[in-house]
């Protein structure tokens, strides 16, 4: 009833859920690195962009889909490792503000490299376009990618939870994100934990790249830039310090923007960024620790 009033059909609902799932993965990717490094990676979207360009190149060269996806993962993982080695590591221990500015610089750097390499018009990744076709489920037409995105999102989160809860390296990562110094004193290897976090976060970026290129096959240098900005807002909204609140924040902001974007007429939906960031500022003021955390104040720097 209310759904009908708001002019939301099931297709919009499904698309919003898929966007939420994709944003949740990005939120985990940002949250993982933040957990061990206390570093907000503004350049996360450029990792996704790099993966998307890898897919576009692969489809341009006529590679099979699996090879394209392998190339996408390889490109993103190499780039993540480089980013960690060349930028994050020398900056370790600096103030969060300095590191935020540094990743801001990296983001612009990668974007202009892409501009130089591929041009402003971008390339088209077509290999997975068949996933955009709808299937009918119970009389409702839903695009395949919607289902794929939700399933992949759930699987990735489940795998990650298993890794964090059931393996030694997962235990080390959780310990490091609680208290890095103490964890190191107890024998956690800093470089290994950070390296694994960065690579996991890169792998998630590659997954996101695959799914976003299906939704939006035109890959330009500012691909995923807007998504990253919104996800960052969502992560802060949910609570930066813990993975689950950050993931929930990412999901809710993706779901909300997807729903509002689908339901509102253009002359209202164009103001979504204002609403989103207004909400973020409000949450920061009222609950600095995030919406989905339990009463811990955020670290005052």
């Amino acid at each position: 009833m209310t759904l009908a009033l708001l002019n939301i059909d099931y297709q919009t609902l499904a698309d919003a859920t898929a966007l939420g799932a994709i944003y949740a993965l990005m939120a985990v990717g940002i949250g993982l690195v933040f957990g061990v490094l206390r570093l907000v990676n503004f350049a996360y979207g450029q990792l996704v962009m790099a993966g998307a360009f890898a897919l576009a190149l692969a489809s341009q060269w006529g590679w099979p889909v699996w090879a394209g996806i392998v190339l996408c993962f390889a490109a993103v993982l190499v780039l993540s490792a480089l980013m960690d080695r060349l930028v994050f590591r020398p900056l370790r221990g600096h103030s969060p503000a300095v590191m935020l500015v540094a990743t801001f610089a990296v983001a612009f750097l990668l974007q202009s490299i892409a501009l130089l390499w591929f041009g402003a018009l971008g390339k088209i990744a077509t290999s997975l376009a068949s996933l955009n076709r709808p299937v009918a489920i119970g009389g409702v037409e839903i695009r395949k990618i919607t289902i794929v995105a939700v399933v992949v999102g759930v699987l990735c989160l489940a795998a990650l939870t298993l890794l964090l809860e059931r393996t030694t390296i997962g235990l080390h990562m959780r310990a490091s994100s609680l208290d890095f110094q103490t964890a190191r004193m107890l024998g956690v290897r800093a470089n290994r934990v950070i390296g694994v976090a960065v690579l996991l976060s890169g792998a998630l970026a590659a997954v996101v790249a695959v799914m976003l290129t299906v939704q939006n096959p035109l890959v330009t240098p500012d691909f995923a830039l807007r998504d990253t900005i919104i996800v960052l807002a969502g992560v802060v909204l949910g609570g930066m310090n813990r993975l689950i609140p950050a993931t929930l924040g990412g999901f809710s902001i993706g779901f909300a923007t997807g729903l509002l974007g689908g339901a509102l007429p253009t002359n209202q939906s164009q103001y979504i960024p204002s609403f989103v960031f207004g909400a973020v500022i409000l949450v920061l003021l009222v609950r600095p620790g995030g919406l989905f955390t339990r009463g811990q104040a955020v670290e005052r720097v």
Partner: protein
Amino acid sequence: MRRLVELQTLLGPVVVVIAAALLGSVVSASNASYFTNALVNVAIVTALYLFIGNSGVLSFGHISFVALGAWTAGVLSVPVSEKPAIMPNLAHVLRDRTTGNLGSLALAALVGGVCALLVGLPLMRLSGLAAGIATFGILEITHNLLRYEEGIGPGLNTFSSVPETTGLRQAAIGALIGIAVAYAYARSRLGRLLRATREDPAAARAVGASVYRQRLIAFTISGAVAGLAGGLLVHLLPVNTESVYLDLTFITLAMLVVGGATSLWGAVVGALSVSALDSYLAVAENGTSLFGWHIDLPAGTRVIVVGVLMALVLILRPAGLTGGREFRLWPRSS
């Protein structure tokens, strides 16, 4: 004598700004615009320094005040006859009014200051990462509203037909005003209190300084300087919402960081040196020659070079080129 010693910190910034303006007046007209642009950048980066440098709190939001200043000065300066063409949906109050050059700049500064005050009232409670994200939110909201609110400006269109009054002289005067304000503020009791809160919030509170109030004052003043810089910018070149958004935020923050965020001298040196590099690369992207070598860089090189430079300075010399110290003719004796 002590006055003189303190005044020397003003000497460096003033001299290089005037030198840049003089240098700009002897080169060809097409190259002079690079100097004008660099001087407007000095004004923007000075505004950034006034808040970020003195408070130690990061702000990604200052370009919103530049944008609001540009919108104010732009809307008020487009001749009434041209307004329907580029701003068809402009509010009635604004449609039939124009102001002169100086009036538009003064109002740009006023709007920048008032908006910074209003934004700062809630936001100045935040620090560190939260402040970074929240001020980034302000940038997003401002960009979003200016883009679609056609009652207060051209929306998606570009501000054409604004009288191009920002030449070298106006830009230099604007930069000098920014420098003078920043210098006076940093030297004042308020500036010292704010720097005390930067160094040690708890100790500053203990001597009676309100962190919130000091930050709010600095944010407001720096918003006014940013608004003025926006006014200068719209009188220099046709501005649209994209030219006062992420790219400008990035390049001006890079200037501040490269120069050294904690000193006025650093802000001015950073603004001028990065502008010089950026302009040179812009020329080189169109083909130029250096020492007999023909250089023809592909488009986009400039952002890469500036980005690498910024990352390198952050890693190798986190306090910036000037080490975050003020200009001195002779080293401090004590």
